[in-house]
């Protein structure tokens, strides 16, 4: 199955993938135990897991015959960058406003 490359926003736009992340935020799970929580075929779950893995939201560790999914920070960093972008944006804009008002006061 071909795995699409999606960015962090597209990855979490899907409710099933968000649900997987939330389940994983409580404890690690095998792909099989994730599948048990969904009314979805095992290949469909595998595809979601692969997308999460490719985007850096989870890592997968093989332990014996089982594949364990663990949350990973990388995927979340892109969203953090997004917030940081706006934080810097406002700082630079408000600096401009400050300059304007200071000049006006003179």
């Amino acid at each position: 199955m071909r795995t699409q490359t999606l960015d962090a926003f597209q990855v979490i736009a899907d409710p099933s993938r968000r649900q997987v992340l939330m389940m994983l935020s409580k404890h690690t799970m095998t792909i099989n135990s994730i599948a048990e929580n969904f009314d979805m075929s095992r290949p469909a779950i595998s595809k979601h897991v692969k997308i999460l893995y490719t985007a850096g939201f989870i890592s997968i560790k093989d332990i014996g015959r089982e594949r364990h999914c663990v949350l990973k920070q990388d995927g979340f960093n892109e969203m953090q960058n997004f917030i940081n972008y706006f934080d810097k944006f406002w700082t630079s804009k408000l600096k401009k406003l400050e300059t304007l008002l200071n000049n006006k006061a003179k």
Partner: protein
Amino acid sequence: MQKEIRQTWFFRQPPDEVWEYLTKPELIEQWLMKTDFKPIKGHKFRFTFTAKPGSKYDGVVHCEVLEIKPFSRLSYSWNGSIQDKTRNYNSTVVWTLVPMNNGTELQLQHDGFTVLDDIFAHNDGWNGCLKKMQDQINAIKK
């Protein structure tokens, strides 16, 4: 993880003067962006800017006035998309003006990034969580 933006600025002008810079398009343009803002609740407007080549953002922010209390509080929605249009974000900007003895304290709150909300909500104590998982994994390995 930070999930909202809060900034506090101080200006020597009284609130009514600072207010003008938040609500008059010709003044907003001077420090923020071009806009067709009107100080009317429910008014839909846009901020437009020239996105830098290669920038992720597409140059238009779609807004609607949510709350307006002259000289003290203004809030609008702040929705946009990233250049390829596949990624949309919804958020809210709130301006609060607090009169001070010698000027105005201007508070900015930009939050409610809805695409991200439930992820962030479940992301509290992230590192502790991650540590716990690693412990679990290690325990399984043994």
